[in-house]
């Protein structure tokens, strides 16, 4: 099939099917906040602090969290748009900065941004925008590739190739951005709120397209969104972030039926009910998420958590499996019997 040929230049698999495509260990990024008369360092935003996770080959990992939780910073670190302060990024068994160069990583990992308009150069035609990356990476026939991909994402090349981004609709622009990311034959695509700015009816079209592309090209996705319904629909596993840290990570069906971390639970209860006879009665949390500049000590959620005890203020909970060998992980003293929390190990939610 000619369509699969388009991506025939995909990098060869190095680690075998059991090797996770991406392993992230203790990723950390702090941003200095400059201020004062002399522009000296005043404070740091702890945007991403000790984030670890894995993405298996062919799966979709959904990342959810509120503004300031560090999900977009994580995405930018993964693709090398920001330099990490600490931690390891291991792509298909190769360590970034060690055996893997940034250029090679960018061949294998691509990103689709939220703002479809700002992520396209207004002075380049659609065809030129899509072909740019392939040309940079030295792939054969970049223009032919671009046209094939346009066809694949549902934009007739003869009608759209020579147009400019402002001449097409938001949904069409996001299709262009997807084609642009795919032009380099990546294996992992990071979708940072890629459908959030679209109207609901258009969003569904783009989600269908993403599902088809994943199957057809054997892609792996990291899907970042604030919309839990969308994340549930597209993901295999869900990772929840709060103030720069991972609080819970689990297969989607597990987390949908029982959330282990009190924050995850609040996030899920904050979803509108969709049932006029059973509307939400009480907001699960009060107040706004705290500022990541001076995050709370210990468990960062303890300021808003109704199960908070002294141990939560003092000790940082580590991410660990709920039961031995489980792939449902949470970072909460409630789930660690040795933590010293008075309700540890008990089912507190009911």
């Amino acid at each position, binding site marked *: 099939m000619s369509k699969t040929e388009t991506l025939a230049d995909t990098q060869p698999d190095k680690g075998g099917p059991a090797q996770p495509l991406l392993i992230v260990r203790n990723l950390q990024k702090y941003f200095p906040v400059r201020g004062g008369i002399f522009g000296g360092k005043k404070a740091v935003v702890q945007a991403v602090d000790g984030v670890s996770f894995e993405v298996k080959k062919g799966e979709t990992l959904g990342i959810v969290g*509120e*503004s300031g939780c560090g999900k977009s910073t994580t995405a930018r670190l993964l693709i090398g748009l920001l330099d990490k302060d600490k931690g390891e990024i291991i792509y298909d068994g190769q360590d970034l900065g060690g055996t893997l160069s940034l250029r090679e990583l960018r061949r294998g990992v691509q990103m689709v941004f939220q703002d479809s308009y700002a992520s396209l150069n207004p002075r380049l035609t659609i065809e030129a925008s899509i072909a740019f990356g392939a040309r940079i990476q030295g792939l054969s026939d970049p223009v032919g590739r671009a046209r094939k991909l346009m066809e694949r994402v549902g934009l007739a090349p003869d009608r759209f190739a020579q147009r400019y981004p402002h001449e097409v*609709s938001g*949904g069409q622009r996001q299709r262009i951005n997807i084609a642009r990311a795919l032009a380099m034959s990546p294996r992992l695509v990071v979708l940072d709120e890629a459908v959030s700015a679209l*109207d*609901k*009816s*258009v*969003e*569904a*079209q783009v*989600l*269908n397209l993403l*599902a088809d592309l994943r199957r057809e090209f054997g892609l792996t996705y990291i899907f970042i969104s*604030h919309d*839990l*319904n*969308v994340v*549930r*629909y597209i993901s295999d596993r869900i990772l929840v972030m709060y103030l720069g840290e991972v609080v819970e990570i689990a297969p*989607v*069906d597990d987390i949908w039926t029982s959330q282990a971390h009190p924050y995850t639970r*609040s*996030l899920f*209860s*904050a*979803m*509108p*009910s*969709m*049932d*006029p*006879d059973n*509307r*939400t*009665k*009480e*907001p*699960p*949390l*009060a*107040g*706004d*998420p705290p500022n990541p500049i001076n995050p709370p000590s210990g468990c960062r959620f303890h300021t808003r958590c109704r199960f908070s005890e002294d141990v939560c203020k003092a000790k940082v909970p580590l991410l660990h499996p709920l039961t031995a060998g489980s792939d449902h992980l949470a970072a909460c003293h409630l789930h660690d019997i040795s933590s010293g929390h008075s309700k540890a190990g008990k089912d507190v939610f009911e």
Partner: protein
Amino acid sequence: MTENLVDIRNLNVRFSGARTVHAINDLTLTLKQGETMALLGESGSGKSVTLKTLLRLLPPKRSHIDGNIVVNGVDVLTLSGKKLQAYRGEEVSMVFQEPGLALDPVYTVGDQIAESVMRHKGVRKDEALSTALDMLRRVRIPSPERRLHNYPHELSGGMLQRVMIALALACRPRLLLADEPTTALDATVQIQILLLLRDLQKEFGMGVIFVTHDIGVAVEVSERIAVMYAGQIVEEGTTREIIKDPRHPYTRGLLAANLHDAARGARLNAIPGAPPPLDTRPDACSFAPRCPLAEPQCLAALPPVHSPNDRRRVACIHPNAPILAE
């Protein structure tokens, strides 16, 4: 007709400029006293234009409005000068999507609320400030005495939206217009604001028109939902009717696109295509080009408005078609 708080009849709004846009086409809408109605639609459906028309906020030179709008017995489209000022704020007020942009950064929030109270109610400053304090308390802002003296940039997004609501309700309007007030907020904050609005509506007994693109939000706040598409209302009914028994193919498509009950990994029943450009006045069903049930007659004339019961309507030739097989 006096029982209706809002009575919009055959409203048309057209913008002229580099190109003409028929933003609102023959819109008729009524809201009873103390009722909460959600105007649901996607970008460009005309929902925000409807709100702006109600407050007479559209640029007069470039917008052409005709039709009838009566709010609490006042003919809105003929208001001008002092009467228009009094109408805005006393009869009707509005909460915007970006409270950070709607509040003045150089005054404290207390001063801003007090200023509005002084202007509309003609009271003294200390009296107005105590009203402001009372309002901050009613929107459940913690330690309101301290917040009164805060500047907008010192407050978080959720707090700002509460201040915005306090400002809007300070003069006890009969009608509150809310333009996507929770869209810019985080999920856990959004639900707080939605529930606050629901409580305040009961407390103050005002009418609310709540514009949103999110069906879930509409369900949480409103008793009634009007679905807009291409500047027209395609379906209207109680929230229960719209959610449990949607009749218009567009409403059904929107509900499916919300994904709350979509099977994971299954193909979505997406509405194909994109909304029409609206550079001409629609003379047929605007949704027909995207509609799975479209027939030749849909493209020949405007669809009939079917009204199964009082205050329920569907603008479609198939008001009783069975729910599409997924």
